C-alpha cells in the first residue's frame, strides 16, 4: 500500500479501530518500498526486523487511542544517528558505522510510538542540493525519475512524495528540508534554530543545522514537530521555550484574516523562473482573498547570503569534519606508513569531491591572513541579514516567497558546476543564517513539476507558519495531486 490518500488522522483511526494492525501496516509499508524503491532509490538501509518487532509489541499492548503517532511508520535521514542501525551520512567514510546511541530526535520518534522503517539517502554529509553527492545511490524525483529530488534531504522528500511513508525526518543547513520538499510537492519545516535538538545529528554547520519533519500535509507536519521538539540537556543550544501543540490550532476555524504578509522583492528577481514567480504571485492573491494583506518588502542584504553562507558553513564543516581521521571509527585506508599517512589517505579516499571542496573552502576562509577578509566579514554580513529580517518581521506576521528559483532539474545537469548549485540556495540560505523557522508547502506546478512556496516566520513562531500554511492548503488542491510513478505511467 502507499500513503497517497492517508494522513496521520486517518491512519490512527484505522489502527485504533483495528481496521489494520501496526504489524500489517508496517509490512505493507515494506512491501511497497521493496517494489517502488528500485525506481525511487530513497532508502539507504531498511530497519525491517526492529520495525516489525516494535509493531508487534504495539499490537500486543494495543494502540493508544490518545496517541496519534502510535504505530505510524516513518523514515529518518541518514545523518541522524540510530542506535545499532548503520548510519552513513551517505559517505564512504561511515559506510559501516553503527551508532551506539540514538539521536534525541530518533529517541523522541521511538518514544512517541512511531516506527522507524529505515534511513534515507542524502547528499554526503548533507552537502548539496540534489542528493547526487551521495556516495551510494542516485535518488529520483517522485514526479519525474529523470530529475533530481533536491537535497540534501532528497531521500526523505522522495520517500514521502512517492507514498512510501507518511512522514520522514530531514535536516536543513541551507535549505535541505525546504528545497527537496519543494521539488517533490510535499510539506517541509525547518524549525527555529534551537527548537529541535541536534544531539546525534552528524554535524555539518553547527550554527545552522536544524532537524525537521517532511510530510504530505501541514497538520501531520505540525504533529510531528511537536513530538520531536524541545530542550535537551545534550544540546545546550536548544531553547527552554515551551513547545506548543502546533496542530491544536489547525481546524475549520483556522484563517489568515488580518494577517500581514511581506513579499520581498528580492525573492522574485532575476534568476527566478517565470512559472515560479507566477505561482507565488497567485499565492499572494489567494492570501489576499483569504483576508490577509500582502505587501512588497525588501531584504537588501539577501543577495549576499550565498557568499556569507558558503564561508560560514564551510568553515564550520572544516572544523566539524576534522574528527574523521581513520583512527577511532569510520573509514581507514590500507597501506599506510605513518600516522600522517593514515589521516591523509583515509580522508582523501573516504570523502567525496563536494565534501573536500567545502572542507578546503572552510580551511581557506579560516586560515592565517584570510580570516578577517572572509570568515569575520561573513559573520558581520550575517548580522546585517538578521537585521533585515527583524525589520520586516517587526511589521509583518510572516514572509512569503519561493523556495527555489526553479522546479527540479535533470539528474546530472548541474552536478559538476558547484557555483550554479550554490546559487540555487539563494532563497533558503538567509533563513538559516538568521535561525528563523521556514517551511515549504505545495503552491503550483510547472510542466508537471511541483513548485513550493516558502513561509518564513519570527523566531519560535512556527505556530503562525502552520496556521498560514494550513489555511492555504485547505483553500487549494495542489497537495491532493500525486505523482504518477515518476512519469513512468
Amino acid at each position: 500500500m502507499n500513503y497517497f490518500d492517508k494522513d496521520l488522522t486517518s491512519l490512527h483511526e484505522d489502527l485504533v479501530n483495528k481496521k489494520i494492525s501496526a504489524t500489517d501496516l508496517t509490512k505493507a509499508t515494506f512491501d511497497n518500498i521493496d517494489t517502488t524503491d528500485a525506481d525511487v532509490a530513497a532508502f539507504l538501509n531498511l530497519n525491517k526486523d526492529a520495525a516489525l518487532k516494535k509493531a508487534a509489541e504495539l499490537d500486543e499492548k494495543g494502540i493508544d487511542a490518545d496517541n496519534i503517532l502510535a504505530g505510524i511508520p516513518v523514515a529518518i535521514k541518514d545523518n541522524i544517528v540510530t542506535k545499532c542501525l548503520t548510519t552513513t551520512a551517505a559517505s564512504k567514510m561511515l559506510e559501516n558505522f553503527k551508532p551506539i546511541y540514538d539521536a534525541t530526535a530518533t529517541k523522541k520518534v521511538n518514544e512517541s510510538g512511531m516506527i522507524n522503517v529505515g534511513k534515507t539517502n542524502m547528499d554526503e554529509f548533507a552537502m548539496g542540493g540534489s542528493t547526487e553527492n551521495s556516495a551510494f545511490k542516485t535518488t529520483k524525483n517522485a514526479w519525474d525519475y529523470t530529475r533530481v529530488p533536491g537535497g540534501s534531504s532528497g531521500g526523505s522528500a522522495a520517500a514521502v512524495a512517492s507514498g512510501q511513508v507518511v512522514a520522514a525526518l530531514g535536516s536543513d543547513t541551507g535549505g535541505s528540508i525546504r528545497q527537496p520538499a519543494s521539488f517533490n510537492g510535499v510539506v517541509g519545516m525547518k524549525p527555529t534554530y534551537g527548537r529541535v535538538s541536534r544531539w546525534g545529528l552528524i554535524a555539518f554547520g553547527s550554527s545552522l543545522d536544524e532537524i525537521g519533519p517532511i510530510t504530505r500535509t501541514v497538520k501531520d507536519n505540525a504533529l510531528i514537530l511537536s513530538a520531536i521538539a524541545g530542550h535537551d540537556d545534550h544540546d545546550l543550544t536548544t531553547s527552554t521555550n515551551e513547545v506548543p501543540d502546533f496542530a491544536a490550532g489547525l481546524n475549520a476555524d483556522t484563517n489568515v484574516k488580518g494577517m500581514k504578509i511581506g513579499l520581498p522583492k528580492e525573492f522574485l528577481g532575476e534568476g527566478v523562473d517565470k512559472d515560479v514567480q507566477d505561482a507565488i504571485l497567485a499565492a499572494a492573491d489567494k492570501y489576499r482573498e483569504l483576508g490577509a494583506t500582502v505587501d512588497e518588502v525588501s531584504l537588501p542584504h539577501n543577495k549576499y547570503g550565498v557568499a556569507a553562507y558558503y564561508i560560514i558553513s564551510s568553515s564550520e564543516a572544516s572544523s566539524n569534519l576534522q574528527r574523521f581521521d581513520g583512527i577511532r571509527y569510520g573509514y581507514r585506508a590500507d597501506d599506510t606508513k605513518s600516522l600522517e599517512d593514515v589521516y591523509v589517505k583515509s580522508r582523501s579516499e573516504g570523502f567525496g569531491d563536494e565534501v573536500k571542496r567545502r572542507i578546503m573552502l572552510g580551511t581557506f576562509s579560516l586560515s592565517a591572513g584570510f580570516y578577517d577578509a572572509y570568515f569575520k566579514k561573513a559573520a558581520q554580513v550575517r548580522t546585517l541579514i538578521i537585521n533585515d529580517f527583524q525589520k520586516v518581521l517587526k511589521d509583518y506576521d510572516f514572509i512569503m516567497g519561493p523556495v527555489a528559483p526553479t522546479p527540479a532539474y535533470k539528474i546530472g545537469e548541474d552536478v559538476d558546476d558547484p557555483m550554479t548549485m550554490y546559487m540555487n540556495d539563494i532563497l533558503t540560505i538567509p533563513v538559516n543564517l538568521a535561525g528563523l523557522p521556514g517551511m515549504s508547502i505545495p503552491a503550483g506546478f510547472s510542466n508537471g513539476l511541483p513548485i513550493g512556496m516558502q513561509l518564513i516566520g519570527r523566531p519560535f513562531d512556527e505556530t503562525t507558519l502552520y496556521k498560514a500554511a494550513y489555511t492555504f492548503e485547505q483553500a487549494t488542491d495542489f497537495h491532493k495531486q500525486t505523482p504518477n510513478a515518476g512519469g513512468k505511467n
Partner: protein
Amino acid sequence: MTSRIDQDQVQHVASLAKLSLDDNQLKYFTTQLDDIIGLFETLSEVDTDGIKPTSSVSDQINVMREDVADNWGQRDALLANAPEAEDGYIKVPVIIDESEDED
C-alpha cells in the same frame, strides 16, 4: 581575470585539511575554488564598519550543568566501530616511518 587562488595555495590548504590531491584534482579544484572565492569577494561591497559578527543564533548563552559523567561505560560497543581493535584498545598501523631512518 586574475586568479584569486593558485595551485600552490590550494595545495597548502589541502595539506592543512589533511587531504591529498593528485595533479588532475589540483587543477580541477583550483579552478572551482577560484570561482567560489570570487563569489566570496562580493562581500567586500558591503559596508560592515562597526557591525558585530554573529557566530550563534541560539537564544541560550553560557548554559551551565553539573560536571557528571553521562552515557559512558560502553567500551566494547565503541571499539566495535574502530577500524581495528585489540585487547580493549584501538589499534593503529605502525606510526614510525622506517624509510626515514635511513637519513
